[in-house]
């Protein structure tokens, strides 16, 4: 589904990703861990097409299409979703209006019919209920006045409504208490199927207790330096990232 080869990304002229290779197959769950400043969030932004994240070398294909040629919204319509580490507040725009506009923009770009208001609301209400979120949030401005946990859960509501092929979760677990963490993990697990893939960026093993990744990668200084199964995450939890230095030495 996603194939990244020799990716180099610079931000403000400084190279952050320095030759990254990663393949994500359909239905796979990949976790990316790594120390602060290793380039985890940069990878998410670069794949989403955010301005200022300049791909200087390498290639990314997504379902056989050159992802780097697509505009941000074209990547979304193609099925890419980035759950932000710090979801943005949009004052004055209510959640329901925004989410329906986003869904219909994607559907229109794919040549699909727009969803009507009734069936849209039914689907969103179901998701809110599953994530134990108050329905009143639909009428509130996007993320405005939301607690940290509500913002993260709201990202999962968007994920569930937009139904992307590949979801990148950028530290969606940060700032969550254990109950909210479980709700988010359950939300993600409900969306797992043979076609939908995930890249979960996280600092901590605890999210991976609830979301069982198929693969774990360690990102350090802009490159994937170690890959393995879940046991790699457990080792990182026990030993920290110090063993990376030892391996290099």
């Amino acid at each position, binding site marked *: 589904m996603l194939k990244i080869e020799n990716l180099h990304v610079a931000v403000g002229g400084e190279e952050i990703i320095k030759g990254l290779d990663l393949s994500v197959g359909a239905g796979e769950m990949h976790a990316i861990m790594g120390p602060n400043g290793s380039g985890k969030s940069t990878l998410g932004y670069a794949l989403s097409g955010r301005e200022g994240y300049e791909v200087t070398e390498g290639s990314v294909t997504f379902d056989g299409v050159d992802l780097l040629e697509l505009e941000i919204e074209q990547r*979304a319509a193609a099925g890419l979703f980035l759950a932000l580490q710090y979801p943005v507040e*949009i004052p004055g725009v209510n959640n329901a209006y925004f989410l329906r506009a986003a869904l219909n923009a994607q559907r229109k770009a794919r040549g699909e019919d727009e969803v009507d208001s009734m069936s849209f609301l039914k689907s969103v209400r179901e998701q809110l209920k599953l994530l134990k979120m108050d329905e009143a949030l639909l009428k509130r401005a996007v993320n405005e006045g939301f607690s940290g946990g509500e913002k993260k859960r709201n990202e999962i509501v968007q994920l569930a409504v937009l139904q992307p092929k590949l979801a990148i979760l950028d530290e969606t677990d940060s700032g969550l208490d254990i109950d909210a963490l479980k709700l988010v993990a359950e939300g993600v697990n409900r969306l797992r199927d043979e076609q939908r893939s995930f890249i979960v960026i996280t600092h901590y093993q605890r999210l991976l207790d609830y979301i069982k990744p198929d693969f774990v990668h360690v990102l350090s200084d802009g490159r994937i330096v170690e890959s393995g199964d879940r046991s790699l995450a457990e080792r990182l939890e026990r030993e920290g990232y110090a063993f990376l230095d030892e391996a290099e030495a």
Partner: protein
Amino acid sequence: MGSLNEKLLAPSVETGDGFDALRRQALKVLMQHGFPHRKVENWKYTPLSLLEKRAFAQADAPQASWPAAEVPAFAGGLIHLHDGRLDPARCCLPDGLRLEPLTPADVDTDALDQTSSADAFAWLNIARLGQAWRLTVEASIADPIWLVETFSAAFADAVHPHLVVELAPNVELTLVQSQTADGAGLVNGVLEIELAEGARLRHLIERASGETARIQRTRARIAGRADYRAFVLDGGGALTRQELILELEGADAHGGIHGAALLHARSLVDYHTAINHRVGPSTSEEDFRILADDAATGVFNGRILIVPGADGSDSRMNTGNLLLSDSARINTKPELEIHAEEVSASHGATIGQLDDTARFYLRSRGLSDTQAIALLKYGFAAAAFDGFADGPLGDWLIARLKQHLGDDA
């Protein structure tokens, strides 16, 4: 070109209608102090060169043809001025509302400055007083009353409508002042509002973009427990100067100003607001936003005054401004003047551009950049109207807001 005195003043003619003394008084102030210029602090950012370039006709005859006033089906009544003139036969008001000619005793000049040119246009309104009306509201009306002001494309006059609105104790009304701006004339209006004890007025002002120069002074006197809230949606225009003055004159009076001005092309729009807490406890809130695109200029000056002894007053003001092009300009100034000890007052002012992170966020969910910008502009403006109204009037306002923002909203 020519001086505004030459263009706008006319020799005093005695008409015997009871207003002659007032007209003479006004003319005297104008002859003495003239019209404001940019060295007058309150007019610093609002050049009147547009008026100096225009030649105003002085047609006194009513227009031969009146357009239909566009009001929604849920309107509870209509007052329609066309080219600045009112034909009572074309108004339609429910029981409890009475429209009648103004009497000289209704004209309040006490609050006008006689020592400078600061209030020159209000004096001009009186000096040139022609048609003037008083609307008395003696019963609560559930459905909003529309005050429609239309202008023909050929409108090139200088007109000076004067309206006094009085609400009896404890009555409630929603007044929607809806203005077009098609002709290249000047409408120099005065609207005096008086709310008796416990009265409530929701006053929506909606202005379409156009060539008509608009100078409007609106003053609301708010008695104890009364509640006045203005909601302004301004689509820009060649020249608009709105003075909006709220006088909180009784205990537990409340005043609110909420507005969004959506400016484009070469619009010049200036809102000077003043909320005067004359008595405490009294409360007020203000949230005014300007979005300036192209080569538009927006001015906001919001003044809060709490006089000595108005203890227990609470006032909150916020002005948010978005610059949408390199050529647009916004001048914004909150002013707090507090002479009482036991009060709570806050103000905030921001000027910025569209947030790139928010744009990215919206696009990452599938919206095009054009849609994202439109949605951010919409959200920024709509936030000024939080809690305005549910139901048809709220829907109407949002629809008008989207229309002002263009097709992408």
